[in-house]
C-alpha cells in the first residue's frame, strides 16, 4: 500500500514541474535530431510514469476493495481453495482413467503379439534355408498374414526383421515404421526378450501418432547366427481421442464446479453479511440521532438474535436519552420560570427601595445607609437574575439571532461612549481605533453591543487605570473588535477559565462594577450564536486582549480574523513591585 502511494506521489511531483515548463511555441521551431530524441525519450518516460501511476491506482483500488468487502474476500478464497481441490481430484481421476484405458490396450497388444509370434514362428521355421528373395517374400507374406488375421487389440502394423550376421532384411505393412522403431527397443529384442514402448510413429500422412510398439524375437530352427524379430505397432489415436474428450470434459467440469462453489460461498456470505450490513447501517443512523431506528427480526437464528439485542440496545439508549432530555428541559424550564417569577416581586421591591432611597435624607443615618445598601444590592441582584435568565435561554436553545446589516463603527462608538462614565471613575482612558469607512456587517446589534460592554467593562475593572484600547477592523469576510487592557493580565490557566460560569480570576479581589460572573459566558454564547469567535490572550503583567470576530454575512463560515489575537508589539516586562 505504502509503496503504491509512494509511486503515485513520485509520479505526481515529477509530472508537475514538467507540465509547468512552457512548451515550444506553436508552430515549433526546427529541432535538431538530438533534441527530437530527447523529446521522444521524455515522452516515453512520461507515458511510463503515467502507466505506473495508473497501475498504482488500480492496485490501491483493488486493495481497498479486498479490505472493504467480506463478500469479495470469501468469494475469492472459496474460489481458490475449491479450484485447487477440483484440479487435484480431476488430475488423479484423469490419471486413473488413462492408466486403465492404456493398461487394457497394452494387455491386449501383448497377448496379440504373443499369438503373432507363434504364427510367425510357424511361417518362418525354415527361412534360413532360402535365398535372399525367398526370405524377403516369406517375411512379406507373414507380415500380410499377421495383419489380416487382426486381433483383439484393434488395427496394427507389423514389421518383421531377418538378421543373419551383418545381413539384415525387413518387411513391414507400412514403410515408415521401421525407421521409427526406437533403438533401445530393438536392442532389447535383439537380446532375446520381448519388450514394448510408447513412441510417436508417423501415420500415412506423416503426422506423428502415439503408438504402442511391441517387439519380440521369433525362435527359428536354423543356425544360431540367424534371427528373426517381429514388431507390432498399435496406433493409440483412438485412445488419445477418448482421453482428450475426457480431459476437456473434466476441464470444463473443473471450471464450472469451481465457479459454482465460489458462487455458493458468495451467496452464503451474502446471507450473513446482508443482515450485518443492515445492522451497521441502523447503528449509524442511531448514532446520527434517529433514535427510533430498529432492525426487523426474522426467524430465530443467530442473526435474529443479533437484531433482537440490537433493538434492545436501541430501546435502552432511546429511553435514557429521552429521560436525560426530559430532565435537562425540566431543569432549563425551572431556571427560566424561577427567573420570571422572581421578576414581579423584584420590581415591587426595586421601586419601593427607590422610593425609600429618594427619601433617605428624612431618615436617621443608619436607616438612610440601609436604604442605600438596599438599592445597591438590589441592582446586583437584578443583574444576576437577568444574566441567569439569559444563560438559561441559551441552555434551552431558545436564543434567536436577529441579524441586520448595520455599520459597526457607530455601534462600537456608542458602546465606548456609554462606558466613559465608568472609565472616568477608574481614572482610565478609553482609546478607540476604527476604520474611516463604514463596516457594514449582518449582526445582531443588541448582542454585539452587550459583548462589547462586557469586554470594555472587564478591561476597565482589571486595567489598573492604564488605557484601554478598542480596535475595530474588517476584511471582506469578517469583522473583528479587540479590547486590550494593560492591567494585571492573565496566566494561561486563567485564560482557559475566563469564559466559565461564575469563575473569578482572584476570589479576594474587590468587584466594583459588580459583575454577575456570567458576563463572559453570555458573551461567548453571543459570539457563537453569530457563528463567530470570542477569544482571549493574556500574559501576567502584560495585560489581556479579548477578540470578538464575527462573519460579515450572517451564517457564513469564519476562516480568519482581520486582527491578531496576540498584540503585535509588547512593551518590555515591567517588574512588579
Amino acid at each position, binding site marked *: 500500500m505504502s509503496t503504491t502511494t509512494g509511486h503515485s506521489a513520485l509520479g505526481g511531483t515529477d509530472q508537475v514541474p514538467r507540465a509547468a515548463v512552457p512548451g515550444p511555441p506553436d508552430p515549433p521551431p526546427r529541432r535538431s535530431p538530438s533534441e527530437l530524441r530527447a523529446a521522444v525519450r521524455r515522452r516515453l518516460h512520461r507515458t511510463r510514469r503515467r502507466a505506473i501511476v495508473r497501475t498504482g491506482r488500480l492496485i490501491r483500488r483493488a486493495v481497498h476493495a479486498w479490505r472493504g468487502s467480506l463478500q469479495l474476500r470469501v468469494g475469492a478464497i472459496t474460489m481458490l481453495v475449491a479450484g485447487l481441490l477440483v484440479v487435484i481430484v480431476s488430475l488423479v481421476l484423469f490419471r486413473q482413467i488413462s492408466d486403465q484405458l492404456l493398461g487394457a490396450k497394452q494387455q491386449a497388444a501383448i497377448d496379440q503379439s504373443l499369438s503373432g509370434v507363434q504364427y510367425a514362428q510357424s511361417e518362418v521355421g525354415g527361412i534360413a534355408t532360402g535365398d535372399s528373395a525367398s526370405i524377403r517374400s516369406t517375411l512379406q507374406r507373414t507380415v500380410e498374414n499377421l495383419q489380416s488375421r487382426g486381433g483383439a487389440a484393434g488395427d496394427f502394423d507389423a514389421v518383421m526383421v531377418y538378421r543373419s550376421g551383418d545381413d539384415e532384411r525387413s518387411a513391414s505393412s507400412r514403410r515408415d515404421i521401421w525407421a521409427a522403431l526406437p533403438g533401445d527397443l530393438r536392442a532389447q529384442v535383439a537380446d532375446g526378450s520381448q519388450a514394448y514402448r510408447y513412441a510417436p510413429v508417423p501415420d500415412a500422412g506423416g503426422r506423428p501418432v502415439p503408438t504402442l510398439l511391441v517387439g519380440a524375437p521369433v525362435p527359428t530352427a536354423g543356425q544360431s547366427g540367424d534371427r528373426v524379430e517381429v514388431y507390432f505397432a498399435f496406433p493409440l489415436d483412438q485412445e488419445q481421442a477418448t482421453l482428450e474428450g475426457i480431459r476437456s470434459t473434466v476441464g470444463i467440469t473443473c471450471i464450472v464446479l469451481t465457479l459454482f462453489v465460489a458462487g455458493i460461498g458468495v451467496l452464503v456470505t451474502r446471507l450473513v453479511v446482508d443482515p450485518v450490513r443492515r445492522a451497521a447501517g441502523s447503528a449509524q443512523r442511531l448514532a446520527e440521532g434517529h433514535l427510533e431506528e430498529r432492525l426487523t427480526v426474522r426467524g430465530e437464528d443467530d442473526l435474529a438474535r443479533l437484531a433482537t439485542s440490537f433493538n434492545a440496545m436501541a430501546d435502552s439508549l432511546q429511553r435514557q436519552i429521552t429521560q436525560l432530555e426530559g430532565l435537562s428541559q425540566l431543569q432549563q424550564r425551572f431556571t427560566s420560570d424561577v427567573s420570571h417569577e422572581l421578576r414581579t416581586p423584584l*420590581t415591587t421591591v426595586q421601586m419601593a427601595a427607590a*422610593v425609600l432611597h429618594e427619601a433617605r435624607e428624612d431618615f436617621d443615618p443608619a436607616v438612610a445607609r440601609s436604604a442605600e445598601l438596599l438599592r445597591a444590592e438590589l441592582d446586583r441582584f437584578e443583574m444576576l437574575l437577568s444574566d441567569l435568565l439569559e444563560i438559561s435561554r441559551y441552555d434551552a436553545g431558545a436564543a434567536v439571532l436577529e441579524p441586520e446589516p448595520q455599520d459597526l463603527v457607530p455601534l462600537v462608538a456608542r458602546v465606548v461612549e456609554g462606558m466613559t462614565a465608568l472609565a472616568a471613575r477608574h481614572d482610565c482612558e478609553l482609546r478607540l481605533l476604527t476604520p474611516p469607512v463604514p463596516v457594514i456587517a449582518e449582526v445582531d446589534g*443588541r448582542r454585539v453591543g452587550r459583548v462589547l460592554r462586557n469586554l470594555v467593562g472587564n478591561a476597565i475593572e482589571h486595567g489598573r487605570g492604564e488605557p484601554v484600547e478598542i480596535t475595530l477592523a474588517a476584511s471582506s469576510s469578517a469583522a473583528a473588535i479587540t479590547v486590550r487592557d494593560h492591567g494585571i493580565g492573565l496566566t494561561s490557566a486563567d485564560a482557559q477559565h475566563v469564559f466559565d460560569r461564575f469563575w473569578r480570576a482572584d476570589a479576594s479581589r474587590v468587584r466594583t462594577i459588580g459583575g454577575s460572573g456570567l458576563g463572559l459566558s453570555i458573551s461567548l454564547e453571543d459570539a457563537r450564536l453569530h457563528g463567530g469567535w470570542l477569544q482571549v490572550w493574556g500574559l501576567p503583567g502584560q495585560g489581556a486582549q479579548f477578540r470578538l470576530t464575527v462573519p460579515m454575512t450572517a451564517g457564513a463560515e469564519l476562516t480568519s480574523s482581520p486582527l491578531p489575537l496576540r498584540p503585535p508589539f509588547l512593551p518590555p516586562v515591567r517588574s512588579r513591585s
Partner: protein
Amino acid sequence: MGPVPPPAASQGTNRGRVLVVDDDAALAEMLGIVLRREGYEPAFVSDGARAVAAFQQLRPDLVLLDLMLPGRNGLQICADIRTTSTVPIVMLTAKGDTIDIVQGLEAGADDYVTKPFKPVELVARVRAQLRRGESVQAETLAIGDVQIDVPAHQVTRDGTAISLTPLEFDLLVALARKPRQVFTRELLLEQVWGYRHAADTRLVNVHVQRLRAKVERDPESPEVVLTVRGVGYKAGPP
C-alpha cells in the same frame, strides 16, 4: 372587583390619568405610589377580562399593561384597545424574550418596560408617551404623496384621512421634517421615544412596519418611509 376610581385629591398637578392593568396587587399598589408622586392619576384593574370595559369607562390618557394576566391575554387586550383608540400603551413585561416583545409591539403597544424596572425608567416612558402632540404652530408637511397637518394631527392622502396613533404620527413627522436626512434607528429612538441611551431598535422596526401598513399604497415597496440599507430610514420625496 371593578375599576377603582381615582382618589379625588392627588399630589401635585394632575398630569394625566393612567390605567394600570396588572394582577399583582403589591406591584399595582407600588406603581400607584410612584405614579401619584409624579403627579399622575392612577386607576387599577387586576382582571384581564375587565380591562377593556374599564378602559372604555375611564378613558385614561395612557395604559400600563401587564402582558401576563389571568383571564385574558395582555396581547389580546392591547389589540382590542387599539381597534377603538389611539391611546398610548406601555407594556409591562416579565419576559425579555424577543418574540413576546415583538408580538406586543405588533399588537399595538407603543413602548415597553421590562421587569424589573426602576421608577425613573417607568416615569420616563410614561412621560415620553404623554408628551406627544404638544406642537401648536401651524405647520403642513408632505412626505411621499401624504400630507400632514401637524397641529391638527391630521394625515391625509388625496383628501382621505389616515388614522395614526400619536406615536406613529410623531414618527412620520420626525421623518417628514427633515426630508433629506437619513435617520438611524438610534436617532429615532431618541427623537420619537425619548430614549437618551441606546435602546431596543426593534421598537423602531416594528413601528415603521405598522406605519407603513397604514400610509403606504404598497407596504412591500414603500414610497413614504424608505429604508436606507445598513443605516436606517428616510422620508420619501413628496
